[in-house]
Structures are given as C-alpha cells and as structure tokens.
C-alpha cells in the first residue's frame, strides 16, 4: 500500500506534470530548431508567434462557441487550431517577405538576423496585445478531468490523490501526432527531403536544383504550425496571458540548444530533460521517502534544491552540455 502511495505521489507531482510541460517545450523547441537548421538564425520571435497564434485560436474559439459548435469532452479550441495556424502562417510569411528576405538577400550575418528577430518579437508582442489584450484568459471548455483527484482517492482508497486533466492527455497525444507527422514529412516527402538537404549543405542543395524560396516558405509554415499548436496546448493547460509566452522562450531555447540546434530529435529530448530536471531536482522527497522506507520519519523536506533554483538547474545542464558537447546531445550545429 505504501509503495503504491509513493508511486501515485510521484506520478501526480512529477511524471504527469513534467511530461505535459516537456511536450509543450518540445513542440516549441522543434519550431526554433527548424528555423535554425534551415534559415540559420535563432528566432527570438518564436515565443510571441506562439502568443499571436494562441490569441487567434481564442478568437476563433469564441466565434465557434457563439455559433454553438463544440467538441463534446474536448476543448473547442482544437477545432479553432487549423484556422489559427493558417492565420499565423500568413503573418510569418508576410514578416519573412517584409523583413527577413531583405537580410537574406544582403547575406547578413546570423547575429544580425537574431537582432532582427528580436525586433520582430517586440512588434508581434504589441500586435498580440492590441488584438486580444493583456488579461489572463481561460478558454478551455469540455471535460476538465480524465481522472480527478477526489475521484481517484474514492475509487482506490489510497491516501495520495492522482489527477490527470483532459488538457494534459490532449497535450501528450497531440504532441505525439505532430512529432510523428513532422518526422514522416522530413524523411519521406520530397519537400521534406529538400529541406533536410538545404539544411545540411545550402550550396550543394542549390546546385541540385532545390528552390530555396519554397524551402523557406514551407519552413515558416511548419514552424507556425508547431508554434500555434504548442501555444494553444499550453494556453489550454494553464491559461493564456500574452506576457507568459515571452517567458516561455527561455526554457524553449534551453531545450533546443541542449538537444543540439538544428536537430529535431534533440529538440524533443531537450524539452523533456529540461522539464523533468526542473520538476525532479526541486521536488521535496519527504513524502515519498516516508512511504518507501518503513519507520522513517524525515526531519526536513528532503529537497535537493529549493524551487527558486529550478531555472538554475536547466541552465547548469545547458552549460555542462555546451562545455563537453558543444553541438548538443544530438549533434546539432555548433552555436
């Protein structure tokens, strides 16, 4: 019984939340890493692209709700997602045409492009605030829980609660589908292969007749799709606030660099490593230890690090990786 309690406590406070957060980070990091691999700069506007896309998804959700459309137990926002992705794709393509294309033409250094993306970030940030405001918005509807804390306790008679939210399940499933589709696209389709070729060696790819403009366009559209999906899932799971997406940028970049910039597999691994280390290292193991070791009464909280250091954890890992494996865990491009 005690063993089960310990297991439930671990699942409830570490495994489920960290997996969900990890999946959200992984989707974000995939977008960053794709842009880096193909357009060769770190896109700081990614977080605000997520915010913009989520804002659109919320507006469409409101429209659908007003028309009485719903998805039953699933959030209506999932129906709005394709519209939001389309809208955001238009925005990033227009941005590319108006801003980035110029810097590609003059063959600007990557660091210039990074600074340009910081500028784009501020503009998108403002556009999002104009569009939907600065307030905290909750737009999740449908069933809240797959397993609710109280229901679980009553059904099993265990002392520890276990909760599994619909949005968490949805996040994990959607992320898995997106990742599978992305890998299929990159490995099996002509456009995907030309994107990888372009990423590996631009000159060779151009010589073999790959149309660079098409590669750039498709990259932006996929990045927009990943950003909006990640942003909407995150917004559903927590809540939407324009300000928060700006902060999401940091762990996303940590995940992408940790995994190796330019490596899709690395982005996913990085996302989960960051999420699990943030939650795991700062967890107070008192309860679990009391359950697992009979007769043991913990004095302190058995916490390795207090929670204010959780960001330090991911960055220590990041620095260690960069020192010993500068290309990241999965051999991305050197930064």
């Amino acid at each position, binding site marked *: 019984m005690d063993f089960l309690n310990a297991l439930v*406590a671990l699942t*409830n*406070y*570490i495994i489920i*939340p*960290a997996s969900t*957060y990890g999946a*959200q*980070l992984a989707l974000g990091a995939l977008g960053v890493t794709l842009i880096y691999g193909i357009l060769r700069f770190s896109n700081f506007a990614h977080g605000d692209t997520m915010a913009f896309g989520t804002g659109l998804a919320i507006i469409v959700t409101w429209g659908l709700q007003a028309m009485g459309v719903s998805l039953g137990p699933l959030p209506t926002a999932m129906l709005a997602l394709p519209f939001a992705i389309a809208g955001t794709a238009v925005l990033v393509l227009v941005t590319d045409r108006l801003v980035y294309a110029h810097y590609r033409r003059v063959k600007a250094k990557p660091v210039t492009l990074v600074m340009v993306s910081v500028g784009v970030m501020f503009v998108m940030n403002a556009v999002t605030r104009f569009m939907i405001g*600065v*307030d*905290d918005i*909750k737009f999740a509807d449908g069933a809240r*829980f797959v397993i609710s*804390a*109280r229901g*679980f*306790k009553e059904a099993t008679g265990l002392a520890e*609660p*276990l*909760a599994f*939210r619909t949005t968490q399940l949805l996040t994990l499933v959607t992320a898995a589908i997106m990742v599978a589709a992305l890998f299929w696209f990159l490995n099996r389709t002509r456009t995907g292969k030309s994107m990888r070729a372009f990423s590996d060696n631009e000159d060779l790819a151009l010589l073999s007749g790959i149309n660079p403009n098409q590669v750039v366009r498709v990259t932006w559209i996929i990045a927009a799709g990943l950003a909006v999906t990640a942003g909407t899932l*995150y917004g559903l799971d*927590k*809540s939407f*606030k324009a*300000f*928060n997406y*700006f*902060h*999401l940028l940091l*762990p996303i970049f940590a995940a992408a660099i940790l995994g190796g910039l330019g490596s899709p597999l690395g982005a996913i691994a990085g996302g989960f490593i960051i*999420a699990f280390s*943030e*939650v795991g290292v*700062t*967890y*107070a*193991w*008192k*309860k*679990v230890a009391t359950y697992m070791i009979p007769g043991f009464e913990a004095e302190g*909280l058995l*916490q390795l690090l*207090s*929670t*204010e250091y*959780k*960001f330090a954890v991911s960055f220590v890992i990041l620095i260690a990786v960069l020192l010993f494996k500068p290309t990241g865990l999965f051999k991305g491009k050197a930064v």
Partner: protein
Amino acid sequence: MKKMLLTTTAALLVAGSAMAEDVKIGVSLAFTGPLESMAPHMAAGAELAMKEVTESGKLLGGVTVVPVRGDTTCIDAAAATATAERLITVEGVKGIVGGMCSGETGAQLENVAMPNGMVMISPSATSPALTSKEDNGLFFRTAPSDARQSEVMADIILEKGISSVAVTYTNNDYGKGLADAFEAAYTAKGGKVTINAPHEDGKADYAAEIGALAAAGGDALVVAGYVDQGGSAIIRGALDQGAFSTFVLPDGMVGAKLEENFGSEIDGSFGQLPDSMGDGKAKFAAMADGFDPTGAYSGEAYDAAALIMLAMQAAGTTDANVYKDKVMDVANAPGEPILPGELGKALELLAAGQDIDYQGASSVELIGPGESAGTFREIEMKDGKVDTVGYR
C-alpha cells in the same frame, strides 16, 4: 520645407511657454509587466483627482494639473529609474504618484527622487522594507505596510484553528516581505510554517512548486502572490492535483479574477486586504467614469494624487522640498474631513488657512514615516463569491 519646420518648432515653443502655468504630476505605474492589468485603473484614479482639482480652478490660483504617465514595468528597476528620471528632468513634474511595485519604487526613490528632491506617493507599494528606508521625508504611501497585514493574517488563521500552513510567495519585494513578516508573526503566535517557498510570476510551469508545497504539507496554503499571475496558477495546480483545499488569500489575491477563476471550488478559503468602510469608497465609486473603481489600489491612487495637490496648496508652492512637510498635515486630523469629490472644498479651506483631514477613498491616516495605518477587510469565499466577514 525647412522654413515650415522652423515655424512649426517656433509655434511649439510658443505654445510650450504659454502653458507654463500648468503643473505636471507624474503617474509612474507599471503599465506593462506582470501587473499591467491593474495599472490602467490606478492611473485613471489618480487622473480623476487631477481633473477634479483642475476643474475646481482653486489650486494655487487656478493652475491646470496635467498628468504625465510613465511606465515602471514593475520588475525592471533600471527601467523604472529611467522613467522617473525622464518625468523629473524632461517633463519637469512637481510630484510623482508611484511607483507601483515595492522593488521598483525603492529604486526610483533612491536613484532619482532623493537626489532630485521630489515627492513620491506610492498607492500600492506595501513592502515592510520601505518603512525603514531613508527618504529625506520625500516618500509616502497610501497603502499600509505588509508587516501590519501579516499580523492580521496570522490572527485570522489561528482563530480558525489552523496551526500549520505552507506558504508560497511571488518572488519579489512584495511577496518576500509579506511572506517573511507573516512567518515571523505566525510562528510567534504559535503556528507552524512547513515551507516558505517562492514562485516566479509569468513563468511557464508551476509543477515543481506545487510538488514541493504538497510534499511539505499543512492544513492550508498561504498564497502571497498576484491573482492574475502565478498566484492563480499555483491555486489551480494545488486544487487539480488534490494538494490543498483551503487557501489563505492576502491582498494581491483578492479580486474579481478570483471569483472568475475558481468560483465555488475554493469555498471556505479566506483572507484579508487593506480596505476601508466608510463613505469615501462609495463616493469614489460613484465618481469613477470609464474605469473600475473597485480595482485594487485605484482609490489609493486617487488619494495619492489628491495628497500631493493638497500639500502643494497648503504650502502655497509646487516646490517638493517645501510641500513635503505638509503631506502629513493635510492627511491627518485635526481639520475638516475631506472625501472624494470634495477636493475643491479642501483647496478653498486650505487657501483660507484652515486645517483639513483628508479621508479620501481609502480612509487615509498616515502613521510612522508616512504610510497608511490601514484597516483590513476580512473576506471568505462563500458560494463562489468573495464575502466580507468584517473589518479589523
């Protein structure tokens, strides 16, 4: 073209000097950042007082008071300092309503207001640390220190028979000040704090914090945070994961958002916030036009602006180094009590050399080094609504 530019510039200069009788007052609040949803209602409160005074035409023989907004960002001390610098040196304000958050307010005071001899009245900075800060008599606040609130909160919790709590606070001067003062007060009164852990606002995920709080345990969770920030996210997570069911909610957590976010899910949770009874609040609410007068610290902002202008009138000058000595006089007894909407009358009384006791929207009573004594409204969540239990 050049000529046209010249003439326009000249016209602007002339216009500028024609408006020299205007008195500018800075409204230095966090229009962007984690409290950006609160700031507009506070600024509107302050500007309402300025409009009222201008329309009365009685301040120092009928000057026009012009508000100048500046953004302090709440979290970036350097940005707040630059804003205060701009307000004083470029705009030439004669007093500042602000800052908004405790840390940023301290930075503005230390780096700009003191060297320049400028009066600052903050409507919402509540950190106990500001009480003992050196200020040359230039700094006041119409919000009470959190040291007071901590005592009140500890009393309320113990009266409910709860003897062990977990505490989480937003990791800034406000949250840390409140949490530490509370831990001291609660422990001294015989309670036990199982963990006192910070959370960062606006962050992506709070799983780690909730895990640690749940493992530490306790009969209730004290959330010294912001309702439209991490505070709500922490409560949401704790509820969903079945970690806590009773929450203690200090001022930053009590707002319309609380009902909207949780409804009856947190029935039985309780808390307190600086708030006054009295007519001032109702009068202020009736005057409000185009903003939410019940928004946190909106009334305090009105009062802060009013105090600056009344002190100017009492001193007969807009020189901050002179009128700073009058702020306490106009705020406290003896004198004719002044409520919102009566600023014109107050100016008249002051001009006639009589005393006033400014009450305003928040029953202002300045104590110690110039901070509000504060009465607190005790609240409890009942049927999904914030229910007032009483005042203490």
